[in-house]
């Protein structure tokens, strides 16, 4: 009870600091007597939005949402711009199936480390600068795709372009900084899902741009090169928008918050340590490799698969391949929302069960996809498969924000990086060269999904429980769990207050259970703003 009062005092103290400390927000300019900063959406004690209003662009929450998903979308468009045009590119550059497979692996392997690095960068300099820097630095790789002339150069541009997929981490970090626990699942789901949409949209956009340019009169082998300027330019534009219109946190940008003392500077080594030493981060990294990693793999191979197996036109194969990625419009956000809904009733245990069920079923559908030989059945199975595998991605990031508060960026980065590792491993084993036919590779990938989803059973939160066990009988609270990341010296300095606030807000993960014996006696409502 006492600690609660101190936290609330501190919260109101911080809020009353001069508004100049914040870069945005709809609060009264210069009016220092207002008790709270005014935002156009309701907020919690950390000023994170408690409502997710999809069609608003209010500062700073929804604006951050739109900036992050559009920039991530553009990175996806660029990273997967080559696959739908491969039937042309492979003839222009005289590529073999091995070359194509290697480049596919390269396209997703760069982001493995880039994502982890991005996680740490977000923790240290904020998502706005981190993501814009990455986007500006990878745009040249997309521009240079127009001038490649060999298998090696093809591999190199795809490798460096793929680094931009690390913007996923900054997207999730930004959403987790702007949105409160009850809605963080859906915020992450929409941002991630609408970004991943780029992988589908590009299968439509690139063949279209290519045919337009070719019909104007360019030779095939020149038209595809010109087409690459479109994603490159779009990507650059989004970086500009982030820097001009974006803001790291509800209260302002990292730089200014750090200087005014509101955001204490954290130690890189400690942040990294608390991230990598949390086993849940590793398990989620593995399982994410088999929902998101599978999604990336399919983005790389599916257009060619339909073109070659069913003798379709390039355009048609592109449309079908696109429908896989386009399902992200609703399936990944749907996963996030379902995770939030399940959590309201069953808490974190519900989130874990939902994820396991959804991803396992996706694996079954993947097995079937490789076995069907008719075009129409294949398309139907693929679409259902896409809904489940993408929903699983959304559900994963309904769990990630709760694994760690101090090292949120590192955990997001590890999970995100794990997604790419899954893509790398899967493509290396099943889709490189001519060892397996594509259909066989798809079926085997489905089997691997089911196996690699089992470790979710091992995730256990002492304060909330796991799939098979309830919360610890030692009555561990959310505060105990999150404050466990700070040692006593750091707590004396007061560095842990953000974690405390988060711990309070995360009580919603207990679910609505009749048995209230696990709750501390002094807390009757989850909302800490009541005094």
């Amino acid at each position, binding site marked *: 009870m006492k600690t609660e009062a101190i936290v609330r005092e501190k919260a109101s103290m911080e809020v009353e600091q001069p508004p100049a400390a914040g870069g945005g927000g709809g609060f009264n300019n210069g009016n220092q007597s207002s008790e709270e900063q005014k935002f156009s959406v309701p907020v919690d004690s950390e000023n994170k939005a408690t409502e997710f209003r999809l069609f608003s662009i209010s500062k700073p929450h929804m604006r951050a949402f739109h900036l992050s998903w559009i920039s991530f979308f553009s990175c996806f468009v660029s990273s997967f711009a080559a696959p739908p045009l491969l039937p042309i590119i492979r*003839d222009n550059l005289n590529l*073999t199936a091995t070359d194509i497979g290697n480049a596919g692996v390269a396209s997703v392997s760069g982001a493995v480390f880039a994502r982890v690095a991005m996680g740490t960068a977000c923790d240290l300099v904020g998502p706005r600068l981190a993501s814009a820097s990455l986007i500006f630095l990878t*745009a*040249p790789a997309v521009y240079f795709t127009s001038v490649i002339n060999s298998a090696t150069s093809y591999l190199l541009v795809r490798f460096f372009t793929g680094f931009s997929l690390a913007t996923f981490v900054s997207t999730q970090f930004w959403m987790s900084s702007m949105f409160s626990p009850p809605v963080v699942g859906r915020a992450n789901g929409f941002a991630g899902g609408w970004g991943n949409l780029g992988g589908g949209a590009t299968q439509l956009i690139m063949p279209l741009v290519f045919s337009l340019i070719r019909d104007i009169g360019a030779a095939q082998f020149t038209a595809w090169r010109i087409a690459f300027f479109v994603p490159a330019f779009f990507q*650059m534009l989004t970086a500009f928008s982030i820097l001009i219109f974006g803001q790291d946190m509800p209260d302002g940008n990292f*730089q200014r918050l750090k200087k005014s003392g509101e955001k204490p500077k954290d130690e890189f080594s400690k942040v990294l340590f608390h991230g990598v030493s949390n086993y849940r981060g590793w398990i989620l990294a593995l399982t994410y490799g088999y929902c998101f990693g599978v999604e990336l793999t399919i983005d790389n191979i599916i257009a*060619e698969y339909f073109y070659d197996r069913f003798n379709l036109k390039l355009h048609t194969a592109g449309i079908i391949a696109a429908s896989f990625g386009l399902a992200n419009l609703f399936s990944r956000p749907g996963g996030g929302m379902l995770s939030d809904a399940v959590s309201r009733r069953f808490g974190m245990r519900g989130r874990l069960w939902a994820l396991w069920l959804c991803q396992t079923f996706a694996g079954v559908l993947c097995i079937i996809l490789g076995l069907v030989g*008719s075009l129409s059945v294949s398309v139907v199975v693929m679409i259902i498969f896409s809904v489940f595998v993408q929903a699983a991605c959304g559900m994963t990031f309904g769990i990630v924000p709760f694994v760690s508060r101090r090292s949120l960026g590192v955990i997001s980065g590890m999970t995100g990086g794990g997604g790419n590792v899954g893509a790398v491993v899967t493509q290396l084993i099943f889709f490189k060269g001519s060892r397996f036919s594509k259909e066989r590779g798809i079926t085997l990938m489905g089997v691997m999904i089911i196996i690699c989803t089992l470790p979710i059973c091992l995730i256990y939160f002492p304060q909330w429980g796991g799939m098979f066990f309830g919360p610890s009988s030692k009555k561990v609270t959310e505060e105990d769990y999150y404050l466990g990341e700070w040692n006593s010296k750091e707590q004396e300095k007061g560095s842990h207050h953000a974690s405390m606030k988060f711990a309070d807000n995360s009580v919603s993960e207990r679910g609505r259970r009749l048995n209230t014996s696990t709750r501390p006696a002094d807390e009757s409502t989850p909302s800490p703003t009541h005094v």
Partner: protein
Amino acid sequence: MASRLVLVASLLLCFLAGTCYGKGGHFSSLKKTLVVTASPKKGQVLKAGVDKITVTWGVNKTLPGGTDSAYKTVKVKLCYAPISQKDRAWRKTEDELSRDKTCQHKIVAKPYDASNKTVNRFEWVIERDVPTATYFVRAYAFDSDEAEVAYGQTTDAKKTTNLFEIQAISGRHASLDICSICFSVFSVASLFVFFYIEKRKGKVSK
């Protein structure tokens, strides 16, 4: 639940079975009655968009008279040699003609007149979308139902003799190179400009 599984399984089986039966002719059932020649010599390298290939085709004179009476059209195609099919499943040779991907570039299609005894000839400028590879030339004869009935090719049955190469256009242009470089430099420079602005803003608010 079990009945649903049975239904799905039987549907799958039906579709899988359907793919086993190919529609259309098989290459192995075609008769090699046409004599086809192409102007490139063995091992010659030609440039796409620039060089020409002259193809000739006609029925083999040593065969009995009515062999070609059913032929209505002849399509002459550019086909990949085995070395260019290696590790490239999209150029695979299949016996079933509807699934065969060996000959993907059409040189010419002409109606065939059995009564005309002269050898047919055509000169073709190699199109700019022909990729770099090793090739031979094959002609298919079609009957009035547009089904293949016979063929002829410039190489032997194992596709090892008389092969020639074509060099594709690169598709690159100097203007594209320059644009790429300019935009890339702009992108990186913008980043540094923004960093500088942020640093200055930070100093001012202090």
